[in-house]
């Protein structure tokens, strides 16, 4: 079924269209899958996001909680995760427990090239849409399912957030400060940042496979495995040398300095590193201790620097703590030393480089107003990426989508009346 629904919207024609012939069903709520799908929508893929109705989506609370922005409009239109991971998509709200809802979903499956399922293992099967059933409806469709630990094995059905997936990768125990208790290691959602990239790679790879075989594929994408390959050093250290990785903090075993130092303002930190003799010379010059880099000084060689790690770090800390952050960074940059401010969220706005590259995206949203959102992960020429649709409102494109799927005005009216579709959450 060749329908290009986006053609029905007044859109900037200069946007990137590299993936324009890929049609995606976004059947997912939290972080990784929706964000990975937005990355493809940025490049022209046509995406329909199917949201649970009348039961609310997890990222759409009906009462104000910690992740809801102030201002007019319902709480469920203004949450951070919903806004961040859902640009450039069309929004359909659908009751999949209803017979008509299932029919609509069936037509969508016939329309799509790929369905990306971000729910826990088994959820979509219980709705009557297992991979076998989906593949029967459309033999050309691809499907990605992405539970935390994958679709099979002894942990099938277990659920997690990113922090827990990371705990089971071996990474968590190596983060943190070795002088502090293990309980103090913070959780991160690193695996929510790595999985979207695999969602994108897997989608295009499955499109190539489909071209060759004329048949859709099922992709089992474990959040854990999508991240685990980022840790080859830790794996080989154990496999080859029987050493468990230590908590290195900001240090490196094989060069000095490599650390984080506090400036005259106790809330402002800088990182400083010298990976080779040239950068070390630059650092010594910047801090007016050029003799530390002369051949007769023990610190001039990597060997001397490694055996005097503590003294070197103390020296740098003493110098840095009497300087302002911008002052030390300017000085070190001038001398080609590796350095950067450790910035917080508003600090990102002070990065002149991002401004000069027009990275920030000014986005208008019905209830959130105009906001300066973070930009794209990459810049493409000649066809630029655009943030042409903000995160959709609940059911915003219901009628457009259903019309394109061949439903009549009367049918759409009936679906609305029967709560098969809708644009308001009450529960």
């Amino acid at each position: 079924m060749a329908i290009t629904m986006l053609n029905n919207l007044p859109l900037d024609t200069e946007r990137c269209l590299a993936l324009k012939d890929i049609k995606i069903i976004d059947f997912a709520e939290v972080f990784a899958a929706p964000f990975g799908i937005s990355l493809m929508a940025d490049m022209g893929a046509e995406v329909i996001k199917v949201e649970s109705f009348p039961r609310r989506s997890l990222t759409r609370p009906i009462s104000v909680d910690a992740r809801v922005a102030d201002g007019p409009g319902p709480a469920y239109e203004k949450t951070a995760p919903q806004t961040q991971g859902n640009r450039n998509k069309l929004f359909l709200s659908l009751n999949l427990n209803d017979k008509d809802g299932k029919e609509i979903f069936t037509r969508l499956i016939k329309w799509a090239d790929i369905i990306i399922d971000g729910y826990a293992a088994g959820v979509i099967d219980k709705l009557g849409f297992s991979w076998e059933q989906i593949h029967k409806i459309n033999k050309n469709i691809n499907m990605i399912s992405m539970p935390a630990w994958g679709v099979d094995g002894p942990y099938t059905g277990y659920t997690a957030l990113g922090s827990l997936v990371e705990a089971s990768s071996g990474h968590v125990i190596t983060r943190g400060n070795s002088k502090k208790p293990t309980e103090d290691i913070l959780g991160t959602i690193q695996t929510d940042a790595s999985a979207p990239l695999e969602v994108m790679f897997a989608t295009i790879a499955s499109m190539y496979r489909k071209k060759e075989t004329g048949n859709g594929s099922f992709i089992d994408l474990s959040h854990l495995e999508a991240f685990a390959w980022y840790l080859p050093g830790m794996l080989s250290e154990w496999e080859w040398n029987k050493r468990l990785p230590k908590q290195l903090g900001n240090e490196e075993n094989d060069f000095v300095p490599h650390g984080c130092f506090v400036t005259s303002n106790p809330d402002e930190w800088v990182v400083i590193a010298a990976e080779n003799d040239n950068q070390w010379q630059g650092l010594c010059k910047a801090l007016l201790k050029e003799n530390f880099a002369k051949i007769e000084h023990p610190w001039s060689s990597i060997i001397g620097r490694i055996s005097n790690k503590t003294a070197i770090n103390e020296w740098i800390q003493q110098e840095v703590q009497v300087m302002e952050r911008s002052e030390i960074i300017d000085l070190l940059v001038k001398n080609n030393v590796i350095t950067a401010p450790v910035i917080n969220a508003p600090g990102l706005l002070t990065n002149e480089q991002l401004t000069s590259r027009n990275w920030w995206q000014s986005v208008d949203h019905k209830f959130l107003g105009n906001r300066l959102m973070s930009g794209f992960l990459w810049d493409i020429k000649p066809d630029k990426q655009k943030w042409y649709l903000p995160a959709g409102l609940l059911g915003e494109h219901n009628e457009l989508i259903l019309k394109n799927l061949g439903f009549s005005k009367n049918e759409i009216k009936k679906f609305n009346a029967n709560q098969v579709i809708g644009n308001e959450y009450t529960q």
Partner: protein
Amino acid sequence: MEQPLSGIKVVEIGGTIVAASATKQFTDFGAQVIKIDLPDGGEIRRTPPFYKDHPSLETGAFHVALDTGKKSIVIDHTSNSGKEVISRICQDSQLVIINLPVEETKKIIQLIDKELGPSTVAISPHGLEGPYSHRTENEMSIFAWTTRMERHGHDGSEPLRYGPHVADIQVGATAAAVGLSIIWGQDHDNIRRDVDLSSIEALAGNVDTGYVDWVLLGTQRKSGMGRNTDNYPIGIYECKDGYVMFAATLGPQFSRLCEAIGHPELVSDPRFNDPIEKSKHFEAFMKYLDPWLSIRTKKEVFKEMQEFRVMVAPVVNMSEVVEDEQAVARNSFVEIEHNQIGKTTIHGAPFKMDDSWKALPPPEFGVHTTEILKKLSYSKEEQIALFKIGAIR
């Protein structure tokens, strides 16, 4: 059945962990990747750990795991004669991924035929243009720029990076995702695309930064998943043989956890069923949770709690990761045969699609130089001339 990316040709120039991780997925899914090795081996071949602690260009962990199945040719890309060879290699490919210092990267892009040549992904810390584009950075300084380091530290103490090269490999995986997309695009619309990928933008634009929370909510949260005594249990808790990590603060999660530890009455206990009261009674709650945890191993906590659909996972180290029953059942690790190390274990497929993923051993330094030059129709005399002048090794 062919591998999904068979027939696609990709070139990698840079010698870095970032560049190698960008092309790894191409080769493992069937594409041909020509790796242009730097004359000194580059960062990827020189980064520890090494097999049995013996440093060599063949036995570094990052090279062994991330250069699987590639072809290696050693070229001095700074010489004109070297550039001549690179230009011919690129002309015979669909995608070139470059991660060199910015000025050198631009010179490589100039070699590409703007009509019929391959698409490119140029990776640099700040992007190819702009006031910071020439700054020297490394993984830690890039990470510091992205807001994640600031969130990864307790108030008043040193902010920390993540594990070594985790951010590098994320940048590489980002380049892979956009790289494959522009190959697909060019296959369908014949438009050659150039991607300018700034590592800082790639990390700062992803979902795990604090920026969007701040711009929408006005709040700046430390990494939200750490141990918290106001709302609990979340973060790391000690059990009989180590630690587990919880994310079970929300209403239904907390209720199920109370049931799992045999105290369903706590669900309606006024100390715990109101957010404000709950924040005052962490110690009281631990009197119920601690004894339960202290007699169970992390594996037991994981399995018993997950049966109650409580979000918890064991905090494990690498020796446990490779033996984990889930990893064994899913073949999450695979063996490759390395000509110096012998059989060695690396991480398996990042996702499973039939039998589309296969890791072959990494190439020895420059082992395919002659084969590649011959394919590009360089005569024996020309190959000798390139060697004599030092453009190839």
